[in-house]
């Protein structure tokens, strides 16, 4: 009977400790972010102003949205190098629909941009899920192909004179909060909810953790893999629309090498590139960390040359601090 009691108590204690560890594991990087913010707020009086916080959030929104989609992809042990190109293609097609001789409404333009993003993402999904092309190769091919299509679509020229109704999604504000920030927050909320509370979300973890076991458990691994790329494309399309609206023109060269920052946000946020473990919360923190670093370095007036060195060191340092906290 005595033994019985111990073994019943033990789990509870273990669970609490494990819970703490889990919090550390997930939120260790939050501590790093907070420390960085404190340092910056002492170094620059403007850092903690409302205006600057709005700047940071606005500047994080695009990479953040891409990183949300990337999190899904990386959780399945995949990678999507084509998000920057999809962003540009969706932006330019979307923009072209709301300008020119017979402009459509902003709603149509935005819908089309999202559709283009999702469609290109779906092609990635097919290549990876159905034709078993390694994600790196499939999306590298798409990185090149979608960029080419973007330039072909409008002969290499930007789409300008976007109507105000369209620009609103990039430049507007609701109750003082910039629209891109609101969109970003909504995306995070929805995708976080899906990942956590739906069967689909749990299946993403299963597929990334062990595809064979997932299949044995009756999960259609192909559909899951296909869908994360399609969703990633959809979000890249959304980011493309917001970026076009923010810069008031859809540029064919937009979003170049954005994939690196998006993946960085995911990995800094603790999601493993081998799939199956990680969280969207981590990604958001990772994206914010990158945003704060860029913002802080600009505020402090660090020169272009040194900025890159400092940025590299901070990124590695943040993950290092995070890792060493985990070890304790």
């Amino acid at each position, binding site marked *: 009977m005595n033994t019985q009691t111990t073994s019943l108590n033990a789990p509870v204690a273990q669970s609490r400790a494990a819970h703490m560890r889990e919090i550390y594991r997930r939120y260790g990087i939050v501590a790093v972010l907070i420390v960085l913010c404190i340092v910056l707020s002492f170094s620059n009086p403007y850092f903690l102003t409302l205006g*600057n916080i709005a*700047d940071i959030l606005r500047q994080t929104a695009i990479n953040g949205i891409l990183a949300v989609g990337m999190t899904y992809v990386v959780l399945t042990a995949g990678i999507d190098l084509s998000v920057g190109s999809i962003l540009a293609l969706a932006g330019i097609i979307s923009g072209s629909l709301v300008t020119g001789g017979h402009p459509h409404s902003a709603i149509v333009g935005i819908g089309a941009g999202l559709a283009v993003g999702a469609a290109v993402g779906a092609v990635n999904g097919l290549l990876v899920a159905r034709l078993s092309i390694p994600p790196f190769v499939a999306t590298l091919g798409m990185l090149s192909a979608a960029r080419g299509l973007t330039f072909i679509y409008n002969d290499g020229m*930007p789409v*300008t004179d976007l109507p105000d109704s369209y620009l609103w999604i990039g430049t507007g504000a609701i109750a003082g909060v910039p629209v891109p920030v609101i969109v970003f927050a909504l995306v995070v909320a929805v995708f976080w909810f899906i990942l956590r509370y739906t069967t689909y979300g749990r299946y993403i973890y299963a597929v990334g953790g062990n595809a064979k076991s997932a299949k044995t458990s009756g999960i259609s691994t192909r559909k899951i893999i296909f869908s994360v790329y399609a969703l990633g494309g959809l979000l890249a399309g959304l980011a493309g629309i917001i970026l076009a609206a923010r810069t008031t*023109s859809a540029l064919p060269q937009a979003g170049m090498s954005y994939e690196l920052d998006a993946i960085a946000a995911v990995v800094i946020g603790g999601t493993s590139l081998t799939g199956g473990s990680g969280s969207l919360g981590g990604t958001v923190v990772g994206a914010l960390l990158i945003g704060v670093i860029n913002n802080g370095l600009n505020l402090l007036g660090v020169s272009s040359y040194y900025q890159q060195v400092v940025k590299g060191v901070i990124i590695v340092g943040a993950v290092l601090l995070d890792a060493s906290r985990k070890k304790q």
Partner: protein
Amino acid sequence: KTIRIGAAVYGLKGEFMQMWTNALKAHPAVKDGTVQITVFDGNYDALTQGNQFDTMITQKYDAIIFVPIDKAAGAAAVAKAAAANIPVIGSNTRVSGDKLTSYVGSDDVVAGRMEAEAIVKAIGGKGNVVIIEGPIGQSAQIDRSKGIQEALSKTPDVKVLEHKTANWSRAESLGLVENWLTGHPGQINAIIAENDDMALGAIQALKSKGIDPKKVPVAGIDGIVDGISAVKRGEMTTFFQDSQAQAQGAMDVALRAVLGASYKPRSDIWAAYGEKMPWGDGTAKSYTVPWTQVVPANAEEILKRIPKSH
């Protein structure tokens, strides 16, 4: 027999080089089939451009029009083509050494100087400015920064608060200037951008911080469509870099090198510039395409000079 000319340009991702390419393809000799033109995208990489030179030399192109990513690195490629007796005409960006058959382009140092002077004038010779630079190490960045430096060194009352690269990118410049505006609230009196895209990003930043762009003078370089529109709205000034003159001028000089003295230039740019850029006999070592400041008054007219595709 059609003449085969290769155009090796540093990269086709920006609007200016797109305009340049359109102008090249609109040259009368290309349109009537005398010349078959192939444009090689250097993808902003000196090695890629070197490789493309190899390919053109192997295929024995009749002439090469060259817009290098880098002055120094371009020299090696030019020397190789020259050794194979292929004339190389520089355009837009210079190459070190003397192996170029000729060069048709605008002087980026001058452009930097002109835009800095315009800004200084706009703020009455006194105040704080920020400078948004091109990608560090690229020729246009180096020269334009040099010109800006030269001009500002003569005006001790103008203080440079910040200078940093935004890599020719509108999105990058937007974020950068937003942060600068936060860090120097109410202190930035003018913005010097080394191209139009970055100037436009700066204007967006002003708007997003609730600042009227008309109150803060912004200068750019290039005269792309969006830039000229902004000039018309009174939000900036820019310096028109005549892509047509650079591209078609280079084409004419190339054809002169291939076909000999009998060739007469066919682009209408020579007539347009007249004495400001004389053809001579088409063998000058260098042709300098002048800059034109774009102001609301001439904006409409300059917009018409932008080369469109087809």
